[in-house]
């Protein structure tokens, strides 16, 4: 018993982390399903509706419903990737070829350490975030680590030692560099307002959410929200910015030479980035777990209140994921030079202007109200 008490402080974080990773991976596989289903609905198709698990799929009405919605499909997809023949082409650099999928997935899973996903009220009546590590500069960690994901793509493109993956890797790196700047600059006003002189929220993501109790940030910072959203699409390599992949001109882009489980890892990593991006957008601009603009916290202080806040946050994240998929089938892919000119000639100046404008507003407000 004493031994358990001694180890508990070390054991609990591991348990929490494993639990969060499991939930997160579950979300990843089901966003793959959501992608397949929503894509097919938008294209007037049906989508996966045949996979049926033995016992669960044969419950009279529920089983048919679940099968029709493709609920069991992610299991089939994952198993397919797992049991396919592991082919390594002869011309690749084996070490980096194997390393690339891991390097792509790891950052997406690492960033969720600082991602708050709900709130609880502790014994002293203070609202606390539900998060693995409540650090003050969580946003910086996310920005720093999530951009490491591009190394996986570049590594894959380079280690594959063939034309199309190479081009995909180059495009991905150029695109990442271009949009990272606009993304960071678009975020600065948000944190400037959240850590406003006299506000008690500070620079943490939790603070950013709590500062949106009365008004969500995308309502009064629409330009920041728009720039951040566009940059987010670019950073997650989603259409209309999937330069790294662009099936039509680069076969499969950086993962042309990959198959079976290594391709599966790339696939999961893409959706992990999408979920992280959605969660981030919800936290920063859509009020996190705050119920509605103006009506922040209708749920109580107890356990149910906590669960409701988490549920509402996840519902918003799902809405954002749906938006990502919806956007994918609405806009065609940009040409490469259009991506570059949008990033450097439009988004970056806009972000700088937005930053300067907000700085002046804050300075004026600070001068005249004090």
């Amino acid at each position, binding site marked *: 018993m004493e031994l358990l008490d001694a180890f508990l402080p070390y054991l609990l974080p591991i348990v929490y982390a494993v639990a969060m990773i499991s939930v997160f991976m579950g979300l990843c596989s089901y966003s793959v399903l959501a992608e397949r289903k929503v894509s097919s*609905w*938008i294209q007037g*198709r049906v989508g996966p509706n045949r996979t049926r698990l033995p016992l669960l799929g044969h419950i009279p009405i529920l089983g048919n419903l679940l099968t029709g919605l493709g609920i069991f499909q992610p299991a089939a997809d994952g198993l397919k990737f797992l049991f396919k023949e592991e082919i390594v082409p002869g011309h690749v650099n084996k070490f980096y070829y194997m390393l690339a999928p891991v390097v792509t997935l790891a950052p997406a899973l690492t960033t969720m350490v600082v991602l708050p996903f709900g709130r609880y009220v502790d014994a002293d009546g203070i609202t606390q975030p539900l998060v693995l590590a409540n650090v003050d500069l969580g946003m910086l960690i996310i920005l720093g680590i999530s951009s490491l994901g591009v190394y996986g793509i570049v590594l894959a493109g380079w280690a594959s030692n063939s034309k199309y993956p190479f081009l995909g890797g180059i495009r991905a790196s150029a695109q990442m560099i271009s949009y990272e700047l606009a993304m960071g600059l678009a975020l600065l006003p948000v944190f400037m307002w959240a850590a406003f002189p006299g506000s008690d929220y500070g620079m943490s993501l939790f603070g950013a959410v709590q500062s949106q109790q009365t008004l969500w940030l995308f309502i009064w910072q629409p330009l920041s929200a728009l720039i951040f959203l566009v940059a987010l699409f670019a950073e997650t390599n989603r259409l209309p910015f999937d330069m790294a992949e662009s099936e039509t001109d680069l076969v499969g882009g950086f993962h042309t030479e990959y198959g079976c489980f290594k391709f599966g890892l790339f696939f999961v990593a893409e959706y992990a980035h999408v979920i992280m991006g959605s969660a981030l957008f919800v936290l920063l601009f859509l009020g996190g777990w705050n119920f509605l603009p103006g009506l922040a916290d209708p749920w109580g202080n107890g356990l149910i209140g906590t669960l409701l806040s988490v549920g509402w946050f996840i519902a918003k994240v799902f809405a954002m994921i749906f938006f990502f998929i919806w956007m994918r089938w609405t806009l065609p892919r940009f040409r490469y030079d259009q991506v570059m000119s949008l990033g450097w000639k439009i988004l970056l100046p806009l972000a700088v202007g937005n930053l300067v404008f907000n700085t002046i507003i804050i300075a004026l407000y600070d001068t005249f109200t004090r």
Partner: protein
Amino acid sequence: MAKTKVLERKPLTFAEKTFLPQIVSGLKTTFGTMMQKGVTLQYPEERPNIPDNYRGVPTLVKDPNGREKCVSCQLCEFVCPPKAIRITPGEIDAEAEPERAHVEKAPQEFDINMLRCIYCGLCQEVCPEEAIFLQDVFSLSGYSREEMINNKEKLYELGGTLPDQHGKWDKKKAAEQSGKTH
């Protein structure tokens, strides 16, 4: 001389230059499509409606009395562009059908190679006895080449009976009974 009308291109407004209104209308379109009912047919369970004049797998039919209609004239064999039909003519068994024997012939063997058939329907068009028909079977598969050759039994099984009103042999019999053979 066709009249050409030169459309004047207006410069884009500011809203149009940002592309945002266009993206919003595009989102509306895709969402509208998503809400529509799908047109997919769940194939093995649901089958499409086959129109009457569909050209499916060629089959042999029998007349309402269960007699073979084919007289093995071999016109279909000659007309078949990919040479998919192979007929071996034979005699009609005199004991089973005494009135037809030595008057008409019947195919001893009738093979249609479905690996060669192009479903053109010329055999049906050329047949003087209305014995061969392209019916509504559209999906055909097998494990070997031999399996894909439809023999006589298979062709009659697929074709069934055609409820026509010609009654060639019935008319002959009726004429004989009333004494007006010619």
